[in-house]
């Protein structure tokens, strides 16, 4: 459960911060190039965070009390493989979901 106080601090701050990120160059920094090293690093922000965010949840799911769960592990692998093979986000989500429920149901 999400604490109400946390919510009312995080969401406005996240909204403002995200807006400023979008507004930055378009709004007030204007037409200038980013240094090469910074540009290189920014290219990898999303792919540097999202896999790390889910890795512990895949290996030690909270729902099973942190015990590694074959169903969830298999679902994660299927999602990743289908996503890489088909480049389809939705296809990967569906494949992963079907795998999870199929194994849990068996």
């Amino acid at each position: 459960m999400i604490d109400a106080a946390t919510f009312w601090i995080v969401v406005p701050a996240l909204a403002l911060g995200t807006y400023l990120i979008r507004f930055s160059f378009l709004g007030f920094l204007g037409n200038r190039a980013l240094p090469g090293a910074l540009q290189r690093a920014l290219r990898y922000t999303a792919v540097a965070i999202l896999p790390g965010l889910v890795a512990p949840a895949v290996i030690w799911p909270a729902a099973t009390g942190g015990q590694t769960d074959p169903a969830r592990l298999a679902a994660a692998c299927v999602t990743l493989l289908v996503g890489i093979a088909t480049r389809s986000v939705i296809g990967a989500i569906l494949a992963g979901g079907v795998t999870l429920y199929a194994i849990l149901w068996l």
Partner: protein
Amino acid sequence: MAAFKSPFVRGCLASAPFVIVVVPFALLFGVVATEAGLDLLQVMLFSLSVFAGASQFAAVQLMQDQAPVLVVLATSLAVNLRMVMYSVAMTPHLGAAPLGTRAVMAYFLVDQSFAASQMEFERHPDQPVADKVAFFFGTVAPIAPMWFAATFAGAVVGEAIPPDYALDFAVPITFLAICAPMLRSIPHVVAAAVSILAALVLSGMPYGTGLLVAAGLAMTAGALAEQALQKMRRA
């Protein structure tokens, strides 16, 4: 495409295919956020004010894990840092528009409007600024209303789903699905692998700070891998 002269209409058509991605993503956010204990108003305010799916999922996941506010913010904002690149790339094309217009466009600068506009502006760089602005707003028109409507639908559905349907795993699956198509080059794969390994090794660090360290390491690894590959190609 030449059949439609209006840049706004051409923008709509260019981003229409993205609706297929946006709708299920927003639906899922509505469901997951409701399951995490947010009410309908909170879920809608979340999607309206932040308007950046991946970071919204990240924030929900971390708040649910009881991570401290600063860690939640740092991590979710870091997910959105890629948009600095979008802002930089749009400025040569849209920077001459009036400040008020730019302020509104900044709010709508999301993955889909950026991707569609970038492609169009690279193909036809010489059109007047007013046409580029109209095209940009055209790319937003199919996306934004669907994002809000589907979030709403997801939140309503989420309130009706009992909490014991293994939905805990919806967020990991969604994130993995978003990441998979991102692994389009060796440096991206390197960054993702470092991110996973470091996050697991550092998961004992207090307050979820391990993830931030892992992200920093992964970003550096990706950038270094890119540089090394370039050197090898030149040699």
